[in-house]
């Protein structure tokens, strides 16, 4: 008997919405044992009960791959056009960072670089690693992997920063006769990348990190 029993050891299940602990209807010892395709609902909030998030691996992989496919055009295509009387300038995410750096705001450049480039890359790396290692059931660095997952959950949405910057600049400069700021398709791809990575990390079930082979000993 482990000192830290898990829900399946005790025949209980936790609701992922309201956290109520109830007896696990999927457990074989349960009086009205629910079969494989059956739907059990939480007695308190009515949400569907799952031991693990449904199809966590396949959904999370699909969303992560879709996000990566959006991320490529998001970086290659310009996100914003600034036009004035004498020149037209198309900005990518990276050139926007460089511009901030050279125009004398290196601190903001670092923030934008972190939000737009480091955070998405970190999400791809961390979620990919978590998916692969959990699918293999390895017990390698479990506490660290659990921590990385929570970090990604916490900072993921800050990537939306550049999308809001482009939106505000568009609204501000739009009616000016002498100059113009326009959003370009890259910003749409980038917004979609952020949303898809957020969904990908939400569909990943962190309990899978701890499931591995020794779970049912």
């Amino acid at each position: 008997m482990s000192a830290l029993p898990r829900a399946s050891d005790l025949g209980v299940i936790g609701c992922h919405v309201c956290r109520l602990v109830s007896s696990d209807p999927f457990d074989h010892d349960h009086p009205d044992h629910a079969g494989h395709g059956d739907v059990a609902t939480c007695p308190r909030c009515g949400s569907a009960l799952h031991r693990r998030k449904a199809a966590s691996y396949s959904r999370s992989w699909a969303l992560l791959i879709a996000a990566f496919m959006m991320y490529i055009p998001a970086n290659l295509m310009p996100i914003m056009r600034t036009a004035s009387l004498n020149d037209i300038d198309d900005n990518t995410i990276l050139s926007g960072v460089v511009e901030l750096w050279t125009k004398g705001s290196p601190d903001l450049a670092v923030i934008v670089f972190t939000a737009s480039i480091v955070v998405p890359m970190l999400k791809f790396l961390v979620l990919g690693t978590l998916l692969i290692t959990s699918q293999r059931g390895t017990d390698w660095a479990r506490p660290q992997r659990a921590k990385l997952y929570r970090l990604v959950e916490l900072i993921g949405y800050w990537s939306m920063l550049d999308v809001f910057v482009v939106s505000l600049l568009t609204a501000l400069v739009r009616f000016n006769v002498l100059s113009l700021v326009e959003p370009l398709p890259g910003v749409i791809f980038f917004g979609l990348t952020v949303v898809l990575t957020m969904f990908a990390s939400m569909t990943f079930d962190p309990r899978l990190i701890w499931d591995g082979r020794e779970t049912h000993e």
Partner: protein
Amino acid sequence: MSTTPHDALMICEHCDTVYRRRVLTRGDVAKCARCQAILERHHGLSRNAMLALVLTAMIMFVQANIWPIVTLGLNGQENSATLWGTIIAMWQQDAKVVSVLAAATLFFFPLVKMISIGWLLLFARSGRRAPGFVPMMVTLHYVGPWTMSEVFVLGALVAIVKARVYFDVIAEPGIYAYAVLTLLITVFASVDLRSLWELTSEKPA
């Protein structure tokens, strides 16, 4: 262990470890021994104080949405941007996806969040469940990660610095209202509203 009533138990959401709940006192944070995730934290805010914070947040939200956020001047010409002006501009510039994203994460979801939290707390003060308690609590769970006002504040700051290269830029009261709103959101983020499931009686008011 089977003799322990289920409501005395709590399960770590991050690793499925089962714990017996213990009473937390001021400043306590219960952490999972297996994965180190926070299980439960005691917050010193009374429900009345929380309600007052929600009301303040609502007032700030209205002002953040009415007042311009940034004004830009060039050769005596002035342009101001409000949140909705920004959302509409993106729609008209064929970035409709972005426009919808901004409307949802900066307007509709924060609005839903504040109104339902306010409504739930109004009844929770006397230990009751508000009408619509269950659907509202479930909605709050799903809307939770999708409010981004704090990212928008930082975005406005970056936009000001970028525009300053070419124009005279003035930060308007709207941005300050947003900044205050962000502070309030940070306070709120530390409060786990799911405790309302336990603190209020099952019967609706």
